[in-house]
């Protein structure tokens, strides 16, 4: 991909859009280990990172890759790694350290079917892992969920800014569909971005200042609790500042379809189709999975209204939807897992079923 000087439309995969978005965001360090369905990202970095004087390393493992990213972030680079589900499991130790040391880093996960080695088909079954922490300890990643190649590109650029602003790891959570599909999208002229604030915590040699230490080990009584209090305060701030979602046709909706990422595209198609057929169906799509749009969902929970959550998993985000709605409205679920993808036809059938169930409940 050449970096355009005017707005250009490009046809590319989600994986490559993420890689290019990262380079345009000033990412200058990438380490990764091949795994399907995200190899295009790794390969794109291998080809293009040297053009901008950045570092590309094919590491010996996922574990090494995330720790190299830790090191690059320690030294002040905008750094990234990427993988798919089993590889992301391996990175969890390093992600916990990055979160604990409050280092900025971007991690892309193009989810595939699990558990175990699973398969290489698309899935959304790492939602719990991504949004609830994933590794040990009380921490959160910021989790962005692009649904289109355009969003994959735009959100990756933003991810680096968010990682720096909050000194927190950010995950781009997509799936095999988004990673491997090609879609036309608009690429604005490249402008290499740099963090807005000078990094006053990095290790680059203690010239003219006191030596700095980056650590997450706190043995003195109360110290680690203080770190946790500080992290939690930061997470509350992120929850206040960062929630993103998309909402369509919800005003008069009898039933609201809730989905993110690739499955949201199926839900959106069904919503359109249902509206043509005269059914009052709405659509709600969390774009940040953590922080989750809890308040916005709660406001939508009205009498005589139901929710239907669609996922490519056995039911993970549905738990956050239920926690948001707190029993104020019925929440139904339809999902496929292990690489299965809900068809529009099947989702439409679930919509009819849910409407029927909700009506019988109202009576």
């Amino acid at each position, binding site marked *: 991909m050449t970096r355009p000087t005017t707005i250009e*439309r490009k*046809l590319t995969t989600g994986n490559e859009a993420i890689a290019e978005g990262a380079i345009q965001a000033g990412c200058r360090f990438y380490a990764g280990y091949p795994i399907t369905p995200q190899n295009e990202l790794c390969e794109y970095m291998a080809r293009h990172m040297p053009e901008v004087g950045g570092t590309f390393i094919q590491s010996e493992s996922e574990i090494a890759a995330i720790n190299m990213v830790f090191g690059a972030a320690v030294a002040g680079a905008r750094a990234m790694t990427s993988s798919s589900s089993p590889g992301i499991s391996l990175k969890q130790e390093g992600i916990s350290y990055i979160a604990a040391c409050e280092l900025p880093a971007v991690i892309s996960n193009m989810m595939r079917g699990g558990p175990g080695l699973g398969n290489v088909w698309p899935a959304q079954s790492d939602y719990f892992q991504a949004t609830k922490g994933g590794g040990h300890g009380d921490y959160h990643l910021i989790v962005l969920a692009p649904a289109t190649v355009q969003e994959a590109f735009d959100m990756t650029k933003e991810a680096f800014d968010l990682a720096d602003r909050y000194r927190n790891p950010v995950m781009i959570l997509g799936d095999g*569909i988004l990673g*491997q*599909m*090609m*879609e*036309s999208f608009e690429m604005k002229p490249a402008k290499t971005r740099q963090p807005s604030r000078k990094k006053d915590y990095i290790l680059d040699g203690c010239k003219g200042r006191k030596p700095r230490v980056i650590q997450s080990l706190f043995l003195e009584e109360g110290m680690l609790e203080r770190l946790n209090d500080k992290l939690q305060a930061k997470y509350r701030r992120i929850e206040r500042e960062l929630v993103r979602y998309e909402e369509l046709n919800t005003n008069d909706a009898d039933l609201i379809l809730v989905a993110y990422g690739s499955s949201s*595209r*199926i839900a*959106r*198609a069904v919503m*359109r189709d249902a509206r043509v057929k005269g059914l009052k169906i709405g659509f709600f799509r969390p774009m940040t999975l953590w922080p989750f749009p809890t308040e916005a969902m709660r406001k939508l929970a009205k009498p005589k209204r139901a929710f239907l959550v669609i996922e490519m998993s056995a039911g993970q985000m549905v738990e956050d939807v239920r926690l948001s709605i707190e029993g104020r409205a019925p929440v139904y679920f339809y999902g496929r897992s292990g690489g299965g*993808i809900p*068809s*529009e*036809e099947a989702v439409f059938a679930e919509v009819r079923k849910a409407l029927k169930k909700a009506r019988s409940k109202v009576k």
Partner: protein
Amino acid sequence: MAIKQKTIDEQIIVAGFGGQGVMLLGKIIAQAGMLSGLDVTWIPKYGAEVRGGTAHCMVRVSNLEIASPLVDFPNSLIVMNKLSMDKFERLLRKGGIMIVNSSLVDSRATRSDIRSYYVPANRIASEIGDVRGANMVALGAYLKARPFLKIEKIVEALRDILPSYHHKYIPLNEKALSEGARLVEGRS
């Protein structure tokens, strides 16, 4: 032709053996669609191995915003081998078109509510000079049956997608496209 006034909503499955160039065929349609100002998506699906197994891709081209990139029920189908026809014919929408590579498929469509075109793509490509052009013969036939993209846009797309060291084959590809189109001429 990209006629803005009319709704274009092509939902295509291109299927065949790995190595028959079905992924590339789909990408060229998508790229040409984008160059024509349309919204496009392309998704691959491979068999267990990249080569030799069955492979198919789903392409959508529309002058409206595409919601789902997945094609559950195509309105156009290009099948390059028998296995693919057996698998996808039943999914084709009523009134949809099916391009069949009759060099490798010896049976006929079982449905009468679709339009089928039998194109000996391998034979024609071999006659032109390279059997690897079979996918372009099929594409030529498809665009004749469903003329929603200009052939110039296909050639432009080839230039965009093929690596520059393959550009010398573009005239051969153009020949394959027009031979494919000729086979469909005057038939439906």
